[in-house]
C-alpha cells in the first residue's frame, strides 16, 4: 500500500505539472487564416454530392504506399466526385528523412491530434469525417478499398451544393466559393479552405518482401500544404433556408517553395458541432 501511495503522489505531481496550459499574453490571439464576408450569390451552383478523403500518412509510415495505390485507383474510378488530401502526421511517422522538406503542417497536426490518439496506426483515413456513433469517428484503413462507403455518400441527396474558382492578382490569390442550401439546415456550418500539392518528391519508407526499404524520389500527391482558413473553418453566415445561395471571397498567398501548377484548392462545408463534412469542391490554383 505504501507503494500505491508513492505512485499516487507521483501521479499527482505529474498531473499538476502537465495538465494545465499557460498561454503567454502576446499569444492570446493568433492568426486564424483567411476570412471574408459572405454575400448573396447569383451563381448557378451544382447540386452534385462529392466525397472528401483525408489520408493521414507519413514518410516513415511503411504501409502508407499501399494506401497511395488504393487511393489512386479510387481517384481514377470516381474522378472529380472524390477529393483527396494527404495529411502528414506530427509524430515520428511524419518526421522527414535525411533532412528533406517537412511535409507536416501545424493545422494538419491539429486535425490529427483532435481526431486520433497519438498511437494511431497508419495509414488511416476519414471519409467526410463521418461518425459511427455519437462519439466515434469512422476510421478507415485505406490499404483496402472502401468503395461501398464512397458510393453511399455519393448516392445521398446533397444538402449543400458547392462550386469554387480561383484567380490570381500579383502574388495574391482569390478563392471564390459559392454554396447553395439544397435543404433547410438549422445547425451552424463552417467552410474550410485548404491547399494541396501533387508531385512532391521525397524519400519514403516502405515495407517490401525484402523488408523495410527507403524509396528515393517517391511521388507524394494531394499533400496538405496549408489550411488557408482557420483549421476548423470560418462560419457560414446564412439563414440556412432551402434555396439560400451565399458566396465568399477569400484572399490568400502561397509559400514560394510550393509549385502553383501542382497545387489545388479544396473547400469543404461541415457541421460546426459534429465536424462532419457535408460537401466539398476543388479547383486548380
Amino acid at each position: 500500500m505504501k507503494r500505491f501511495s508513492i505512485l499516487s503522489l507521483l501521479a499527482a505531481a505529474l498531473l499538476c505539472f502537465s495538465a494545465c496550459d499557460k498561454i503567454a499574453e502576446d499569444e492570446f490571439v493568433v492568426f486564424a487564416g483567411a476570412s471574408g464576408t459572405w454575400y448573396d450569390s447569383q451563381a448557378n451552383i451544382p447540386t452534385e454530392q462529392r466525397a472528401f478523403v483525408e489520408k493521414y500518412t507519413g514518410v516513415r509510415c511503411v504501409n502508407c504506399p499501399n494506401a497511395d495505390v488504393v487511393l489512386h485507383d479510387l481517384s481514377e474510378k470516381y474522378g472529380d466526385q472524390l477529393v483527396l488530401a494527404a495529411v502528414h502526421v506530427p509524430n515520428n511517422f511524419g518526421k522527414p528523412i535525411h533532412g528533406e522538406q517537412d511535409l507536416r503542417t501545424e493545422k494538419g497536426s491539429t486535425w490529427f491530434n483532435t481526431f486520433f490518439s497519438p498511437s494511431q496506426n497508419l495509414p488511416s483515413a476519414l471519409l467526410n469525417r463521418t461518425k459511427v456513433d455519437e462519439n466515434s469517428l469512422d476510421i478507415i484503413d485505406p490499404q483496402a478499398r472502401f468503395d461501398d462507403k464512397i458510393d453511399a455518400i455519393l448516392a445521398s441527396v446533397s444538402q449543400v451544393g458547392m462550386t469554387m474558382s480561383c484567380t490570381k492578382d500579383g502574388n495574391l490569390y482569390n478563392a471564390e466559393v459559392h454554396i447553395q442550401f439544397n435543404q433547410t439546415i438549422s445547425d451552424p456550418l463552417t467552410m474550410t479552405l485548404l491547399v494541396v500539392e501533387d508531385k512532391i518528391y521525397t524519400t519514403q519508407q516502405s515495407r517490401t518482401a525484402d523488408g523495410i526499404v527507403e524509396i528515393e524520389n517517391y511521388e507524394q500527391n494531394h499533400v496538405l500544404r496549408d489550411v488557408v482558413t482557420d483549421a476548423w473553418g470560418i462560419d457560414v453566415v446564412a439563414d440556412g433556408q432551402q434555396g439560400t445561395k451565399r458566396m465568399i471571397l477569400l484572399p490568400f498567398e502561397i509559400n514560394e517553395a510550393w509549385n502553383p501548377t501542382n497545387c489545388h484548392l479544396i473547400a469543404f462545408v461541415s457541421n460546426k458541432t459534429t465536424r462532419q463534412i457535408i460537401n466539398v469542391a476543388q479547383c486548380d490554383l
Partner: protein
Amino acid sequence: MKTLSKYLRTIVCVGLILIFQFSVLNSVSAQGIMGGHVTGNIQLDGQISSADSIIGAQDVPEWLLMNARADILYTNGGFSAGLRFEAYQNPMLGFDNRYKGEGIANYFVSYQGEKLSVTAGNFYEQFGSGMILRAYEDRYLGIDNSLRGLNVTLRPFNGVTIKALAGKQRYFWNYADGMVRGIDGEVNLNSIIRCMAESRFRATLGAGFVSKYEDDQTIAFPDNPSYRLNLPLNVGAGAVRMDLAYGNWGLQAEYAHKGQDPSIMNNFIYREGEALMLNATYSQKGFSANVQAKRVDNMSFKSVRSESGEMLYINYIPAITKQHTYAFLSMYPYATQTTGEMGLQGDVMYKIKKETLLGGKYGTDIHINGSIITGIDTNNIGGAGTRGYESDWFKTGDLYYADASLEVAKKLSKAVKLTCTYGYQVFNPVVEGHNGPLHHNHIVVGDLTWKVNKKNVLRFEAEWMGSDSKYDPNVDDKRCGDWIMGLVEYNFTSAWFVSVSDQYAYQDGIGNYYNVSVGYNHGATRLQLGYGKQREGLLCIGGVCRQVPASNGLTFSLTTSF
C-alpha cells in the same frame, strides 16, 4: 476517450455478471436475495397546467407533464452495482427540454474495501468544499453533473485519504466532450501523529488538483475575424484547505486557484481565477455562532467552454447566504455569482434558559442571521482575448444581496409553539441578469403550531412582505410589490395532511396564488396532490438556481422506497 466509454461499459457488464454469479453461489446459503440486497426508491412527479394570462402561465400542449425516476441498488458485501432509470415524458415546466426521453441515465459497479474503493461507471464526488470539483445531482434543480469514468479512493494509513478520478460529465442524455481528471489528498494529523491523538486540537489538511481537457475550437477574435483565440486545451485548478478545531472553536479555510480558462462564462478572457472561503465557528450548550467570508474571482469552471447556464460545472462555489424556508423570505433567493463576488455572513443561535424572565417555562430560541454579498472591484482592461480586468483584492463592487433576519421561537404551552420572524432583504436584480433599482423588502412571519393530540397537528402561518419595488410590465418581475399570505395545514391520523394557502399581491404587484394540497404517508410511501398557482421565479438550492415558470393547475407526486 472514444474507447473509454466502451471499456467502462465492458467493466460494468463484467462486474454485474461477476456479482450476479457470486450472488447465485451465495444464494445456496440463502443469505438475503441471492446473497445480497436490493434496495431502491421511486419518484414520480406529474403536472397538468393551463394558461393563465395574469400570472403568465403558458398552455401545455402535452396536457400532462411527468418526471419519473427509479434508483435500484444491489449490494453484496463490499460490492455494489446500481442503475437509475429516468423518464421525462415530457419534462415538467422549468426543466430543460433536452431531458425529454427515457432510459438508463446512470449505472455503476463499485467495490468498497478497507483501504481501497473503486467505482466504474457514473459516480458523484467532491474535493473539499467543492471549489475545484463537485460532481453532484439535484433532482429538483434538474442538475446531474455525474462523471462517467473511474473513481479510486485509497486509504493507505489511518487518517490518510487519496482520491483519483477521470471521466466525462453527464449532459442530459449524452456526455460532454470535455474530459475531467482529478486527484485529492487529505490528512488527519491527529490520526498520523501519535502525540496529537488525544489532543483537544484537531487538524485536517487537504489539497486537490483538477484538470479538464477540451478539444480546440475556433473562437473568432471579435475585433478581427482573421484572428482567433489561442485556447488552453488543458485547464487546471488546485486547492488547499484546512479544518482546525480546538475545544468549542472551529476554523475551516480553503483557497482555490484556477488557470487560464477563457469561456463563454467569462467572455473568453484569460484572467486566472481564485476563490477563498473562511468559516469560523463557536458552539456550546445553548449557544452557537459562526462567521463566514468568501471572495470569488473568475471561478466558473466547466468542462465545456461554450456552455452557459447551470450545466457542466465541474466546481461548486458554496453559498453563504441563509437558505430560508418561509415563502416570502425565500422569494428572492441569491444565486452564486461564480464570475465574481465577495460575501460575509454571521449566524448566532441562542437558547434563553427555562424558568427565566424571557425564557418562560420552556425556554426561548433566538436565531439571528445576517449576510451581505457584493461584486468584486474590477478595472476593465479589455474584452475577449485579453486578461479582461484587474481587481483590487480588498475592494468591493456593487451590492448584490443583503439579508438580515431575527427568528424567535417559543413554546407557549405543551401543545402550542409560536415562531416569529422578521427579515430585511436588499436584492440587486443584476444578479439575475436584469437591470433596475435595488429591491428593499421587509418581511414578517408568524408560525403557530398546535399539537391537538398525539396524532393531530394544526399549523397556521401568516406572512407579510412590504417592498419598495413596483410591478413593471416591461421588466415583468412578478415578485414585486407588497404581499400577504396565509396558510393552514392540518396533519391528522399521522398519515394524512391537508393544507390551504394563498399569496396575494395587494399593492404595486400582480397575482393571487392559491394552493390546496393533500397528502398521504404510508410507511416509506408518500402521495401528494396539489392544485393551485405557482409564481414564476427562481428556485435556488445552495446558491445554484433554476428558473421556474408560472404554472396553473394540478400537481402530483409519488415517492416510495424499498
